[in-house]
């Protein structure tokens, strides 16, 4: 058969692009840009979409692109705008914005297929950029889907003659990507990772801070308490501390203006030495990005594996930049410590200062109670006793407080959340001259029994106090524990559940909780195995492969060896398709029968038909005569009989499978 004479255009690159392909490439660009929809400025997206839409509309009416001068002017304007907004093109958002604009304006001037080629490259790059700070499996799957679509479009674009159909293009592109997978996996596993960035890129500050902030006003934490978002996950190497010791330390607040507590930036003191007691807890914290520079650790941190992080004077672990992507930190903490150094006068002054003229009733109360309890510890217990004995309530819905928040809370509303109690307690302490500070962080956590780690959610946010007692150092006092001991023993859900609306009760049903934990376990697995795959993981992998003294050089050698094997496989896999079509099933089963007989010492001669072969086998191996004759007869019937055979190919295959010729007899001709 001879196909009709084909005469195609000299080369397709300069051929005009068809309406359908234009539509396809616009869809691919939109697909890739949709991954950036939360980070890119809206006007950039509008501009790019507008360019694409105008070009498609023009193409539909078979009109050419707008004049060159207009396009250049618009593009220059947009790029200047972008620069004014970001002051750089180096960052992720600014760079992506620039690429998106370039793609849009390139699309606008598209005449030939060659113009589109640049756009496909931009689409690929923009897709990858979305993954640089993304971390979800779904995002990866979504963008690989986009890559597939783009590749199929490119296949249509580069085809000479009529473009192949969408379905076959997608199938072919999909097959190529599947063949690329093993190679990509080898690259990913063995390509050496570096410890730090090659050069520092400006932070975009693209996401809003979440979780605790460095200020605390009454009611702040109640907003967090309703959030199910995960703050961090913790895996303890050995045992977890008991619930009443699971305090996760965050920013420590010193400055109080009568309403709001603030972190003090006045002095960056070194962390005072501590004498540790009790067991050491080793654990790994996987922090969700929260855009602040502190790292939550179990109270009190002693060691950590993040070289750039350091302790502040008030024992918060901080790193130089904000936590803008998920990180994991291995640390060791002691839950029982004692300060060995005296409190510096400057620190004492800071932690006993109260705003003059605010909360007068509280100050009065403190003076009268201090009169009755001159000993510091006695006074602390007296204040805690007041909280339990008087009608104070723990609630997620405290009433609004006015300017003198502590006065209002202590004498009027008497209802509050941990923040209220911590604030009131610290004020009462300072009023009595005892240095006190508010520590914010998290308390408790949910154990995921499906994967042996703890989930700490925003709803576990907590605030407590530390007071300086001469001779004992900083002591943790949690006034909330005095009001609602359940809050500390069982977590915030139990303590606050009583006044949650009925509508969200179903969240506490066991199956929902289980499903959520299982999902979270999967997410954590993805994190540990994929997102945090690094130099150490590669080293462990080499150790697992029993390679002695693994190092970077060995890693590269393993990469080269694996790549060589993969390339051999690829060459074989790609060329295999050139071989003649595989045998039809019946022939395959028959060949199998012949192979079995050959192994039994009676190979089929090339010229022999099934019947003649059966006769010869019967002569050489009389023990097999009956079965082989029957099999060969069936084969002949299946293959040559005009009428539908009495048995099916499947039955024949089963018979061949069941056929066992037995041991090899003396050679036979």
């Amino acid at each position: 058969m001879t196909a009709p004479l084909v005469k195609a255009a000299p080369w397709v690159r300069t051929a005009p692009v068809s309406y359908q392909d234009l539509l396809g490439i616009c869809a691919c660009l939109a697909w890739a840009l949709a991954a950036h929809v939360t980070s890119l400025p809206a006007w950039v997206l509008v501009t790019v979409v507008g360019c694409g839409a105008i070009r498609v509309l023009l193409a539909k009416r078979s009109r050419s692109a707008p004049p060159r001068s207009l396009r250049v002017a618009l593009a220059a304007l947009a790029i200047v705008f972008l620069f004014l907004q970001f002051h750089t093109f180096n960052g992720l958002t600014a760079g992506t914005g620039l690429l998106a604009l370039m793609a849009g304006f390139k699309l606008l001037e598209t005449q030939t297929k060659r113009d589109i080629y640049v756009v496909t490259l931009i689409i690929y790059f923009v897709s990858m950029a979305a993954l640089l700070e993304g971390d979800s499996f779904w995002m990866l799957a979504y963008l690989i889907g986009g890559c597939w679509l783009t590749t199929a479009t490119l296949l249509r674009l580069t085809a000479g003659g009529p473009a192949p159909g969408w379905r076959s293009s997608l199938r072919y592109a999909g097959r190529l990507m599947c063949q690329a997978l093993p190679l990509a996996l080898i690259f990913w596993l063995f390509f050496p990772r570096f410890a730090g960035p090659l050069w520092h890129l400006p932070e975009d500050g693209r996401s809003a801070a979440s979780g605790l902030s460095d200020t605390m006003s009454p009611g702040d934490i109640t907003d967090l308490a309703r959030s199910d978002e995960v703050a961090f996950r913790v895996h303890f190497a050995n045992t977890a501390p008991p619930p009443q010791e699971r305090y996760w330390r965050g920013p420590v607040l010193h400055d109080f203006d009568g309403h709001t507590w603030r972190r003090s930036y006045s002095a960056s003191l070194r962390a005072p030495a501590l004498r540790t007691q009790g067991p050491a807890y080793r654990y790994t914290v996987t922090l969700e990005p929260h855009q602040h520079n502190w790292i939550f650790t179990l109270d009190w941190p002693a060691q950590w594996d993040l070289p750039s992080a350091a302790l502040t004077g008030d024992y918060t672990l901080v790193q130089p930049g904000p936590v803008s992507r998920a990180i994991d930190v291995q640390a060791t903490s002691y839950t029982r410590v004692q300060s060995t150094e005296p409190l510096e006068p400057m620190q004492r002054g800071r932690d006993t200062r109260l705003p003059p003229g605010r909360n007068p009733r509280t100050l009065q109360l403190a003076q009268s109670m201090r009169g009755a309890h001159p000993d510091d510890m006695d006074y602390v217990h007296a204040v805690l006793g007041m909280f339990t004995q008087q009608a104070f309530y723990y609630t997620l819905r405290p009433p609004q407080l006015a300017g003198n928040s502590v006065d209002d809370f202590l004498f009027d509303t008497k209802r509050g959340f941990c923040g209220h109690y911590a604030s009131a307690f610290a004020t009462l302490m300072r009023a009595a001259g005892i240095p006190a500070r508010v520590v914010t962080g998290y308390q408790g956590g949910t154990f995921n029994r499906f994967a042996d780690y703890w989930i700490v959610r925003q709803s576990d946010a907590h605030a407590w106090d530390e007071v300086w007692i001469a001779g004992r150092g900083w002591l943790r006092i949690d006034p909330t524990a005095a009001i609602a001991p359940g809050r500390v023993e069982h977590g915030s859900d139990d303590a606050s559940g009583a006044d949650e609306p009925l509508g969200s009760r179903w969240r506490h049903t066991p199956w929902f909780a289980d499903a959520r934990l299982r999902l979270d376990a999967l997410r954590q697995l993805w994190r540990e195995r994929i997102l945090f795959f690094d130099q150490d993981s590669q080293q462990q992998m080499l150790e697992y492969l029993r390679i002695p003294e693994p190092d970077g050089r060995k890693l590269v050698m393993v990469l080269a060896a694996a790549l060589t094997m993969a390339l051999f496989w690829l060459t074989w896999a790609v060329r295999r398709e050139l071989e003649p079509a595989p045998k039809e099933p019946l022939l395959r089963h028959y060949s199998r029968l012949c192979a079995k007989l050959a192994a039994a010492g009676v190979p089929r001669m090339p010229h022999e038909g099934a019947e003649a072969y059966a006769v010869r086998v019967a002569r050489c191996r009389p023990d097999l005569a009956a079965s082989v004759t029957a099999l060969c007869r069936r084969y002949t019937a299946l293959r040559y009989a005009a009428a539908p055979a009495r048995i099916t190919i499947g039955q024949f295959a089963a018979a061949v499978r069941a056929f066992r010729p037995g041991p090899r007899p003396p050679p036979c001709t």
Partner: protein
Amino acid sequence: MSTLRQAAIVKLRAWAARRHGPDSLPISIDRRRIYILPTRFGIMLALMLAAMLIAGLNYNSNLGLAFAFLMSSLAVVTMHHCNRNLLKLCVDANTEADAFAGGAARFEFLLRNDSGIERRDIEIRCLAAGTGGTSSSGNVPAKSSASVAVDIPVTRRGVLRLHQFELRTRHPFGWFHAWTYVQGSLTAYIAPSPHGSRRPPGTGRGAASRSEARGDEDFSGLRAYQPGIPLKHMAWKVLARGGDAAVRSYTSMAAQPEWLEWSALDGLDAEARLSQLCLWVLESDAAQRPYGLRIPGTEISPAQGAAHRVACLRALAAANPP
């Protein structure tokens, strides 16, 4: 840059010719003779992949790296597919082509694909000295064949010999182009462009009288069939009786062959004479008159038909006038 590239390509072609030696058509393309390089688009892709890799490493982003590695591997797979697109393809060609100066010599190539996959966008390129090279492309469906015709524009009379042609493909995606050189010799006979104002020598007696002289009543017997003789002269009854193919012969046709002679065209320069002779050949052939050709160094005795016409035109193409 361009001339440098041209020089490199000339060297490469010569090297390939030495390496593979002359080929006899048809030929199946084996892997040793397929060369592959990235196209300009492929180089742009490579730069982009490098940028992706650097970005992924710099952000320490395992997902970004996964995407970059997937794209790089896709490029490697594409390279194999591009190479495969030519592999084990069978090429045949008609090695001779006829043309007139100012026209185009058409070589037809037959591509046979025995495999179960379609070969897409196979381009055949013939590079003739002095011309930029021309190409055509086509698809070869699975277990099938396709013919691709390449027209080489020719401007001057003569015999054009090509010792090499090229099969190339950029399928899929145009990131790579794979090519192979086939050392098959192709010959184009380029007859002079037919023009001139002189009347042929035989027309002295007048074309009108000749056509009157032709008729069925002048039947003079049977002679053996030769290709090119109009079918209306076939002796079908002889054939039906089982005899050899024969044609009825007429006295008026057999008689008076006209000679188209170089020497009859004094006063014209050599190429003009050849152009005039070419025009006469075509006119005589169109009028189904027997004619002979006599030019310096060559004499073709009178006959008629397509084969005779081709022989005459080739003689004119190859003529080497003093």
